[in-house]
């Protein structure tokens, strides 16, 4: 290893292992009731993974630097006029009543925080868009089972049903109480569905559930639509999702608006990925133009 490389490694190490914790420690100083210059602050459930990715996109779209707080190491209570919350923990803090709360990446929140002005950015695509996309991937689709717990997604599934009637797709609400109920629900619906879609429900999305659904799909030749591209890569037939980047951007757009009441903003761009190995395995013919436009094709 030459000295330049060594220095680069040490530099990276210092930055990752020392600088960031140092800056984080500074941020951890008692900072209750702080206010950003711009009147907007971001609160992250954790400075990692999807929260971070969405926040970076938010920041880019927003165009200004704003204070950000990591709840995994620090209990913040920003007082800004606009709060962008990333994650369920961040979304459920008790912010000032007059602030506009824009929250995203909170797939488990059942009830919108009881506030006058709230914008929710869902992880799921708009119902009509989602069904149209699935219909394009699977033109013969007539009956779609949607797996979720009844809490956070009950209203969304109702909207799906409504859109489904318009598109002549019967939505089967596969509402379960926990992941333990999924095998029985699959067997109950095995003869009644043409495809099934797992919503990004934290109570259901885990490795074991995913494995169960993946093998059920393979064994019974029923397409499995997942809530994220990575799950399509790991064996779901396809994924229908809003990217974390799009979610962050949409949150930024909402934060810039003078929102007066509570509403839901779906990201405009819907993404889908397809696992062609899996679709071939279950003998599913996907139109070429749909394959061409996929965000990612896993082969």
């Amino acid at each position, binding site marked *: 290893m030459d000295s330049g490389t060594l220095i680069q490694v040490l530099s990276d190490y210092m930055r990752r292992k020392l600088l960031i914790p140092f800056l984080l420690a500074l941020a951890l100083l008692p900072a209750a009731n702080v206010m950003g210059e711009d009147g907007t602050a971001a609160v992250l459930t954790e400075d990692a993974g999807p929260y971070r990715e969405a926040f970076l996109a938010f920041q880019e779209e927003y165009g200004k*630097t704003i204070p950000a707080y990591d709840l995994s190491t620090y209990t913040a209570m920003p007082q800004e006029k606009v709060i962008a919350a990333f994650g369920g923990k961040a979304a459920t803090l008790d912010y000032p009543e007059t602030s506009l709360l824009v929250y995203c990446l909170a797939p488990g929140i059942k009830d919108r925080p009881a506030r006058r002005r709230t914008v929710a950015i869902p992880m799921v695509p708009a119902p009509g868009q989602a069904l149209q996309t699935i219909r394009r991937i699977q033109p013969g689709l007539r009956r779609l089972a949607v797996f979720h717990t009844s809490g956070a997604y009950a209203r969304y599934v109702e909207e799906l049903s409504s859109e489904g009637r318009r598109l002549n797709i019967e939505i089967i609400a596969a509402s379960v*109480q*926990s992941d333990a109920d999924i095998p029985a629900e699959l067997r109950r619906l095995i003869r009644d569905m043409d495809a099934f879609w797992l919503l990004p429900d*934290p*109570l259901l999305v*885990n490795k074991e559930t995913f494995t169960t659904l993946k093998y059920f799909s393979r064994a019974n030749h029923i397409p499995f639509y997942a809530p994220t591209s990575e799950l399509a890569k*790991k064996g779901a037939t396809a994924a229908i999702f809003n990217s974390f980047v799009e979610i962050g951007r949409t949150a930024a757009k909402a934060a810039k608006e003078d929102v007066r009441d509570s509403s839901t903003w779906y990201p405009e761009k819907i993404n889908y990925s397809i696992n062609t190995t899996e679709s071939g395995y279950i003998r599913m013919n996907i139109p070429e133009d749909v394959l061409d436009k996929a965000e990612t094709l896993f082969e």
Partner: protein
Amino acid sequence: MNLKSLCATAFLAALLLPRPAQAQDEQAEFWSFMGEEAKNLTVAAATPETVFNSVSNVTVIDRAMIESYNFSSVSDALQAVPGIMVVRTYLMHNIPTIRGTLQEHYADKVLVMINNVPMWNAVTGEGDLDRVGIDAVERIEVLLGPASVVYGSNALAGAINIVLRKPNGKDTSLGRISGGLGSASGGYGGNADVSRAGGLYAWHGSVAAYTLAADSYNRAQPAYRFHDEAGAANSIKEYMNARSLNFTGNYKNNTVLINASHSDQNYLGNTITLASGELFNEVREAALASYSHDFSPDWGKLRYTATYDWQRRNIPRDASDNVRSDIVGSRFINTLNGRADLPRDLYAEAGGTYEYRYARRYLNYYSNTDTVQWDNSLNGRLSQESSVHAQFGCDKEHWKLLAGSRYTHNSGAGDNLSSRASAIYLFDERNSVKALFSQSFRSPTPFEQYFKPSPVTVVGNPALKPEKAGTLELSYLASRGRFFWHLTAYYAEYRNTIFRNLGDFVRDGTAYSNVNFYDNAPAYNSKGLEIEGRYEDKRTHAFLAAQYLRGSRGDARDVPAPGVFGLPGGRTWNFKYVPAYTVSGGLSRDIGNFFAASNFTGYGENCTLRGHIGAQLWADASVGYKKGDIRHTLAVRNITDREVLFPEYVRLRVVEEVPLNTGRRVEYTFEYRF
């Protein structure tokens, strides 16, 4: 800009520093994200397990299988599990028997639970499969092998958990009624009655949900010719009529379970004679209320459960039905269980249980005057049992390890330490091998310790030690396409098994000569092989379950000649009455709106005290039509019309066998969902 804002901005700058990879490319980060979001929910997700990585040997019969094969009771459904027989003694119907561990008069060696809440008689120890009707069942989980570290006393040979149905829609109600007529023919008579009736209502709101299920099932067997120990014969028509009501509700972190049941069944008598009440009715009643609260501390999960379980049996004791016994008991249980996730894929589970067991009475009384004949020395006996347990586990991608122990103190039977250790290797998500070691115990019941009737039939023994069991198991589970296999080989040891001995016995200074009394048996063991295979596609389901076992004669003893009809005595031991082979299987198929299914159960050749019983085979078949919310089913039970026999292994005098089935029976069921 003030200092704090500057700090926050600096933190933002740190956030903006480039990182090596995008978060969404990291699947681990996605799982971590979902796990983090699950923490914020009111109801935390249960620790997910599949049969492949479960630290026990578990078989599940789910709702789809129950409906496919039209099982009419929990007992019927259990026959589909390898390693389980549902047999009877002359005192009890529907006794679940795991891996050939016979259960004396009472079914107290298998723990029966509703939604993981143990329910069993505080006086005589038996769990009752008929406390839940099949239409209220979502699934039945069967754990084969000792399970005291997890469940405490009574899970000696295994555990059966009956999981009740839950609402499956948002803000929706599910109503269901079903009913049918049954007709029994053959033997000495026929019968027609309402075989099943039930209703289920479920509601699911935003923060609360509940399910209410009422269920009734009547099974009248065709009559058969019964020869008693005195040589008398009569036509006997056996029956089981069970009703149950179940309520489950939850509100935020609180869960309530209520179960109430009542059953009427015929009774073969305290001795197998027509003069001991076999023509009369036995009544069983029970009520259970359980409340749980889930806490979600930062370090893991915590659940507190308080349960009250009350049971009553009322049985005839003579041919005039003038003398009856009223047996009443209750249990009050407090349990606190927690789980903490530790660094490096480790976790710890720990908990404590405190239980009061109250034998209120075992009273013989004259039914015409309601006056007491004898209290059997079982009035107002209170015992307490407390236990603590801890388990430590490690979950790696391919390995799963768990080890733990439970220490128990029983006020009447002393201390016990049971342990377990499990190692699982997952070749992949659908291929695993398991090595399991587990121990269990059962504290003697008040009946076994203190019963003292007049006239003497059997005497309790206060010096009884707890029964103990230990098992070594090796399992292989695999799934490919639509097929699933589960193979298990095991070696089991049983010590201090409680049984009815015959001889001279002294209790409380009183000497009894040639009397039945409860005693601990010498150790014995068994080894066996269980095979389960399932196939499933969109329209077809099939299963095959088989068990082979060989048991030792470590508990062998002599049975004296009964002194009548010139019959000789014999030699007896537990596994004498357990067939070496048992097999069950089934096939169900949908054809358009029509469906058909058949399942069978077979027991290999078997011994009675002095003779043999040939191989037994019985089968049920059903056909039906379903469209929309309506379903019609026509079922034939025991289609071969054979009398299915099982050895009489408790009394061991004159009668050599008792019937499990006596003839063919036809049932029609109608179901409407709204």
